[in-house]
């Protein structure tokens, strides 16, 4: 028990400190949470900015594609590929256009290049997702290339093309690189 004024003052200070501790700790927690939240927000903003930039850069190709001017879309894409050779979006668009033009093996090869660079294209939740188009091409590949390979099992090009198809199927099924 406090015996004099100093003891009483010290005891009061201790009680005050103990009472203030939860408030201080809660404050620190919320500041750390805010910092984490800021980072997540920054990541989301960067991703959205990237998606927007890709849309803008590849808009001329998508316009030509939507107008059915597929050869011109490919030529424009080739021009962009020289500027951005490692950009997955270009490979994915190329796969889509080549598929529409009937070049199945090349479409599959382009999708493989794109998915290897960025798996978001097979992720349902990504705004970049082209999962359904890739799935359709892979299914067609199994059917057409698989049938030819049964007839010509020694054909090395068909075997390589089917390997590409199987890579896409594995990524679509959630497999890793």
């Amino acid at each position: 028990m406090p015996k004099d004024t100093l003891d009483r003052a010290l005891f009061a200070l201790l009680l005050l400190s103990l009472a203030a501790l939860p408030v201080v700790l809660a404050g620190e927690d919320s500041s750390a949470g805010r910092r984490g939240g800021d980072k997540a927000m920054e990541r989301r903003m960067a991703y959205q900015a990237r998606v927007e930039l890709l849309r803008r850069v590849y808009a001329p190709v998508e316009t030509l594609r939507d107008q059915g001017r597929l050869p011109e879309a490919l030529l424009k894409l080739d021009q962009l590929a020289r500027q951005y050779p490692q950009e997955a979006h270009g490979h994915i668009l190329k796969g889509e256009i080549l598929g529409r033009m009937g070049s199945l093996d090349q479409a599959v090869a382009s999708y493989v290049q794109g998915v290897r660079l960025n798996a978001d294209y097979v992720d349902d939740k990504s705004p970049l997702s082209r999962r359904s188009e890739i799935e359709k091409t892979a299914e067609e590949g199994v059917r057409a290339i698989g049938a030819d390979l049964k007839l010509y099992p020694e054909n090395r090009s068909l075997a390589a093309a089917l390997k590409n198809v199987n890579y896409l199927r594995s990524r679509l099924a959630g497999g890793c690189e």
Partner: protein
Amino acid sequence: MPSTRPFRLFLILTLFFLLAGCDRQEKRPTYKIGYMICNSEIETGERFLPLTRYLSDKVGVDFVFVPVDTQEFEKRFKSGEFALTHTNSLLYVILKERYALELVASEKRGQFGTRTAGAIIARAGSGITRLEQIRGKKMAFGPMLAPTGYLAEYDLMLRSGIDPERDLAHYSIPSGSFKHEKVIYGVLHGKYDVAAAPILDLEVMAREGKIAPEEFVVLGQSPIVPYCTFGAARTTDPALVQKVQKALLELTPEATAELDGQRLKVLKAAGIDGFEQLLDKDYDPIRDMARRVKMPPYQEY
């Protein structure tokens, strides 16, 4: 000085084996590869001499590079001059149908890999934006046996209800070498209203900065068809054909060959991306086009 019998025998045998070895090296079998001249004889040599040397090194025989004019190819092949051929896909079909040429490997180049397409183009801003509008216009085609510079576009017009013989003001084929480039430049510079342009040439010219995709419009495009093709004469040893095929399919961008003291990258010199093993049925779209256009090997008189 030793003059014993065994020593003399040793000398004679050594000399015999040395000479026999030299003899074997000098007498490697020789085979001719007939290369259809693409744009010019010089360009064809620059592209395919390193590849010919690479094949000789890989297969262990001496291949001889023979540039051949497209119009003379069939006659010279028929005479048995070539063990192997490198031609466009229409010439492959002609030689396959008439002389049972065997498919060895198909060239990979450009966006469609082993295939490409033919297109009909007009200059951007010329007012011609649709295929129907080419009636009454001046048109240029590539060489007559070019699958994607003549056959594909002629077929595309017929299938679209346009008869090139009646519905155009007139059409012509430029003379001399580099015909495909000439027709494309001809359209861009206003010499012709429209032209038959191989998509591959548009791709290559755009990549080299000679043209820009915005400068022209594609009015129509043919289905994609195989492009340049290696074939083997029926009489060529199957083991040799198999070795050539393997060497072509295994070609990588790093492969080199020595020519006139220079070591060259084979694929880079040839301007191609590699080779693939297509099936003969992949050439059926060419056959269908040739039938519709009544061109060899299905021409009617």
